[in-house]
């Protein structure tokens, strides 16, 4: 805008700053808390300035964790979370891209039936089907494994539905032009559909990654081996001790928050690029 109204500017900035402060403050507190000496956080007053035990706390959390709380080192837990979240994300994206491709571009019997079948599963989140799913996973001997952690969460009606809606906005002539140009279905998918969906893929990647990263209930019931503890589970276990070591918990929290932020930062470039380069 080309308006010049100092008061409006001032007001706008004040609102923005207050908003940002509200969001940033708890994060700041977590950072501060993770640098305090043991026992500092249970005295009743929350320090507002960083302490001097940051490196010590983070090193301990990263390397050994809290064995009394049955939570292993943060390095292992972060790795577990990362593998699970990536497997879920990549799995969800590939399956939903392929099923949306099938539903939009192929005419087969019961096409709409299958579409609605997928759509209906939107109404069945993990929590609803958790007992039968557990039974299936247990029978397949997938307890305490990455397969058990990720495969049951991979099917995604949401992503399938979104990709279907997106594919339907691509002009039919694009497919026809590709057919005249000698591209078969898979070539069309790879050369035209995937590059055009890159924005949607990036956005869904972020959402799915965070969804996978934040999984709590499922990993909790499916794993008993500490080698498969995820960071979210680990934090929960540390806080349910009799005397939680809050400075270490906070260090774990800060570390747990970083990967999603990194994923967003990385993907953001893709979807900002995608948004500004959309055709028409």
């Amino acid at each position, binding site marked *: 805008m080309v308006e010049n109204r100092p008061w409006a500017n001032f007001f706008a900035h004040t609102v923005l700053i207050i908003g940002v402060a509200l969001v940033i403050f708890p994060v700041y507190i977590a950072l501060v808390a993770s640098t305090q000496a043991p026992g500092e956080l249970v005295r009743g007053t929350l320090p507002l300035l960083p302490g001097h035990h940051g490196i010590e706390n983070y090193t301990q959390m990263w390397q050994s964790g809290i064995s009394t709380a049955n939570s292993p080192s943060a390095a292992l837990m972060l790795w577990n979370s990362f593998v699970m979240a990536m497997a879920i994300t990549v799995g969800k994206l590939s399956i939903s891209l392929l099923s949306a491709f099938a539903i939009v571009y192929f005419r087969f019997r019961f096409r709409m039936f299958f579409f609605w079948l997928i759509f209906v599963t939107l109404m069945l989140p993990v929590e609803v089907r958790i007992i039968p799913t557990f039974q299936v996973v247990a029978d397949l001997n997938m307890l305490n494994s990455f397969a058990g952690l990720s495969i049951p969460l991979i099917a995604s009606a949401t992503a399938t539905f979104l990709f279907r809606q997106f594919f339907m906005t691509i002009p039919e002539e694009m497919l026809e032009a590709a*057919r005249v*140009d000698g591209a078969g279905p898979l070539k069309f998918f790879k050369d*035209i559909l995937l590059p055009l969906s890159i924005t949607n893929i990036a956005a869904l990647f972020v959402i799915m990654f965070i969804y996978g990263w934040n999984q709590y209930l499922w990993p909790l019931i499916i794993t008993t081996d500490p080698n498969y503890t995820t960071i979210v589970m680990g934090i929960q276990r540390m806080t349910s001790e009799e005397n939680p070591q809050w400075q270490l918990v906070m260090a774990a929290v800060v570390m747990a928050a970083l990967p999603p932020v990194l994923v967003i930062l990385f993907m953001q470039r893709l979807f900002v690029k995608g948004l500004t380069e959309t055709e028409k």
Partner: protein
Amino acid sequence: MASITLEGLKKTYTGNVNAVKGIDLHIEDGEFVVLVGPSGCGKSTLLRMVAGLETITEGTLKIGERVVNKLEPAERDIAMVFQNYALYPHMSVYNNLAYGLKNRGFNKDEIEQRVRIAAKMLEIEEFLERKPRKLSGGQRQRVAMGRALVREPAAFLFDEPLSNLDAKLRVQMRVEIKQLQRRLRTTSLYVTHDQLEAMTLGDRLVVLNAGQIEQVGTPMEIYARPATLFVAGFIGSPAMNMLSVDYLKAQDANGLLDNLPAGTDIVGIRPDDMHLTPPAVPHLAVDSTLALFEAAGAESHLYVTLANSEQPTVIRVSGQPPVAEGETLRFYIPREALHPFDSTTGKRTNTF
């Protein structure tokens, strides 16, 4: 290059909708044929059947000597230019042109060479590295043509390629398409609803209506001797005037209309065959009132209401009309300019 033969081509959609009701047509090698008709007449469906984008319900389609009914579009050796261009938005112009060649396994040098030649021909060399969205409508149109050109196919299929352009650009591209086709001598099938585009582009026109061929012929043949009432009304702008024989006979003092072919109950008269001064040949004279005068520069269109008739009529003259709006106007129709039709069959009644 090849001829295209359509034998009894039919398209029936589910629900027994007959979009194309049996088309027989032979397109010579190197010929430029235009399919023209109002929207919904099946012209696009027909083109898409030739392209292989629609299945053929019945009939035989040959490109060259090959029956291609069941072949995929890519195997038919045709190239198509779409109405909305259908350029791949994420690829550079170069890759848009090269994509079809890559899929056919051409080697890099050959692709490069062909793309350069096509780009030069269409004057889009400087845009080769750009994405389609950075191009204007006319440039996109050229890229779409280029994509067809690089393949050096047996036939070009055009599906209303100019309808997204503004009027001036449309005329320019029309000329370029025509010149290009003259130069390459590639068999071309072109679909349009614009009768002017059809007249100016085609070696031959195929006028379609309701899934059937109304008339096939050179533009001038069709203009001079429309075979049906539909063609008469569709080709030519302003449209041909239709007057009932009974009305004209009432104005006819000299018995000029006595020898009209049997069955004639309506006659068509082109707006340019109506004169404001009496011609030297045998003619009819009709009185009317000038309702509206439309100046179009080199010519004027006079909308007149005939005396004792509701039939709206248009006359085309050069320059200004001699009278003002609301005044009476007498015009003259040469006897030889009448196109006799039978309104029940819709057919022309004289066949000479």
